[in-house]
């Protein structure tokens, strides 16, 4: 066995640990940088005190709010205070709702998680079989179809695809509700839109991996031994071709959790993405900052997980 956990020994554990520490350190640095950038950027977007005070506020109202929320302090001081709080889960209160940011996020994150997991499942169920078939029959009609699907998926804006689905399946056919999150049926259209977005990458990678593996010597040997062709395809070929796909799927999931903003807004799904979108419009800084940090942490974590998974499965990566 060239790949796989069977080759377990002390040297491997040490190599893995060193790799793990290196990646963890890198991930922490990335997260910190993202938080710093997002924190600074928001202060270029206008005076939060004016937004907070509302349309009818007087000069005194705005000044009072400025002092109350500490906007008159230097930005580095505000950043350090915020980051210190963040380590203990204290992101302050939302300016808009005047309730703890952490409560708002924990209320809404499950919807986004559900949607993200459903989306990635849909993407894998669609993309992997299509990729495999396309690889078995390269340049066939089904390969062309798969290519078409992936080109369209990459070119079509999410909001437009969402509206097209709504018009066809909710308005004209009446099969599914237009918006909301009351039942599982409410999640069908958003799942398709979100999942479809990740389909092209996964499919192309599955196809490329399968093409490469199917040409490998050990597959030829397996075939020559007269093994069942299905067994060759799924046990020997797909398993090896799947390694990079798993990594990509993990990264795509991270992208989906942070990237469902438009979809949640269109389908009126009350998740963390919609909260982010609305909070940006309302200049609700504590919420935006916490969400950017959270989304980037999830992304960094999933990327890290994908790296580690690949390293575990493929020794060449962890030595490099």
């Amino acid at each position, binding site marked *: 066995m060239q790949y796989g956990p069977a080759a377990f020994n002390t040297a491997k554990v040490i190599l893995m640990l060193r790799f793990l520490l290196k990646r963890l350190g890198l991930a922490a640095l990335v997260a910190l940088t993202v938080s710093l950038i997002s924190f600074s950027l928001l202060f270029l*977007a*206008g*005076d*939060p005190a*004016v*937004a907070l*005070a*509302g*349309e*009818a*506020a*007087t*000069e*005194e*109202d*705005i000044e009072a709010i400025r002092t109350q929320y500490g906007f008159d302090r230097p930005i580095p001081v505000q950043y350090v205070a915020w980051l210190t709080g963040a380590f203990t889960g204290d992101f302050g209160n939302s300016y*808009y*709702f*005047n309730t703890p940011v952490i409560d708002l996020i924990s*209320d*809404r994150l499950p919807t986004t998680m559900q949607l993200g997991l459903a989306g990635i499942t849909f993407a894998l169920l669609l993309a992997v079989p299509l990729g495999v078939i396309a690889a078995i029959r390269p340049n066939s009609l089904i390969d062309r179809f798969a290519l078409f699907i992936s080109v369209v998926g990459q070119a079509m804006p999410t909001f437009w695809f969402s*509206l097209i689905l*709504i*018009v066809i399946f*909710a*308005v004209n*056919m*009446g*099969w*599914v*509700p*237009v*918006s*909301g*999150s*009351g*039942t599982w*049926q409410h999640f069908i259209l958003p799942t398709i839109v979100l999942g479809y977005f990740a389909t092209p990458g996964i499919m192309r990678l599955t196809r490329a991996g399968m093409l490469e593996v199917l040409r490998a010597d050990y597959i030829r040997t397996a075939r020559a031994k007269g093994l069942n062709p299905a067994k060759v395809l799924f046990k020997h070929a797909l398993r090896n071709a799947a390694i990079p796909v798993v990594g990509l799927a993990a990264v795509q999931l991270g992208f989906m959790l942070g990237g469902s903003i438009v979809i949640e*807004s*269109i*389908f*009126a799904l*009350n998740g963390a993405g*919609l*909260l982010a*979108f*609305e909070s940006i*419009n309302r*200049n609700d800084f504590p919420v935006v900052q916490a969400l950017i940090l959270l989304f980037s942490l999830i992304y960094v974590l999933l990327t890290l997980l994908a790296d580690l998974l690949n390293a575990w499965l493929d020794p060449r990566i962890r030595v490099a």
Partner: protein
Amino acid sequence: MRSTLLAAAAFAAAFPLPTLAGSDDNSLTVAFAREMDTLNPFLNTTREGVILSRHVWDGLVLRNQETNEYEGNLATGYTWIDDTTLEFTLREGVTFHNGEPFNADDVVFTMNFVADPDNGVNPQRNVSWIKEAVKIDDNTVLIMTDGPFPAALEFLGGPVVILPDQYFQEVGPDGFAAAPIGTGPYKLTENVPGESLTLERFADYYADGPKAIASIDTITWRTIPDANTRLAEMLSGGMDWIWQVPSDQADRLAATGRHAVVNESTMRIGYLYFDAGDRYGDTPFDDVRVRRAVSHAINREAIVENLLKGASEVVHSACFPRQFGCDTDVARYEYDPEKAKALLAEAGYADGFKIPFAAYRNRDYAEAMMSDLAAVGITPQLDYKKYAATRDQIQAGEVPFAFMTWGSYSINDVSAITSTFFKGGIDDYARDPEVIAALQEGDTITDPAEREAAYSRALNRIADEAYWLPLFSYNTNYVHATELSFTPTPDEIPTFYGASWN
């Protein structure tokens, strides 16, 4: 082919349609764009909050939309005892949704609680005029204002609603926002944050008040941020009522025959202001001829006719025409580009000039005005940003020329607009002592005729000096199921207790 059809049919059968809102069970499903910040009516800063407040709570009075008279709501009568004291006789036999009886203690508690700045009412201007309230007996209270404040009744008929003193003190502000209680025609029975509210008809609502006894049993109030989604809900039959529908889409909905479209003006007006008072620095606008030239250069009629449409109209005074004190008989600047060019030449700007120009909404209107200005040689340099950023710069004195709008918070009194912008504050770019004095007078005397005269002086001066170019009033399209009877009002507060299924 047949199998595809069958699969489709099976698919459809497996997905029962969402309960169609509508006349069958006497319920109503409505959609709004924004999630409210809080359900506490005194901390809520959204239009949605104003609308909810009108349903769940009552004020002491309520302005009749047709006569503009204040009618008793929780009060049955009121008198001004002097310039700063109002006496109210309270309605008897009224109860809150939880059964708590309404009496003078509720009014006194509410007034004194909200008047205390430490309790953080937002915005403060809704309550900063209240000094204190005193109970005379169970059905009589006095409300004292902080100096003469003639617009008091407008606030008591709007944002200042009455809270239940016992319940509020028992649960505290946070508990109250979580489970609010009022005396209004609807009680709030469910709140799914960010998604929906459920309102149920309050069966014990008093019969002889100015608000109609509600006909519809249950209102599902959904939050749907995306305008296209609200429209799709309407088309799919999952929604009975939406508003703020753009006119082209409203026309299409009307064409289906299943939807009624009603257009009503709102209290919001658009305006251009000029840096006449040198806040920004030396600009061509220091010369009144240049301000008049701009006023003549812009074809407001064409913008209303082609872009705003509906119930919108060109306005000439620095206020919404139906507001108290809004004298519309002021100097008018008809569209006349030749005259504009002549005035510019006279002022020494025959070749025109460049000027920074800020705007935050309706970019198409702003661009129409810019092309009108270009036709007379003026080149506005558009800086289009979000409201908070724009207003921040304006209040810091950094914007010499801007297209802005103001909705007066639905307060039907010119003090909510003209006095906000022309009394020498951070939004005042004219800083005209004559205008400031006239507004000061209008804001602090109680005799209606004298107030009108004072505001008229201010508005005439503003128009003569062309400190603002008032542009147009805004309108909104209400779209609802044809079987629903619904009447919108110009205060932009849709009320569903007046709605019913035919």
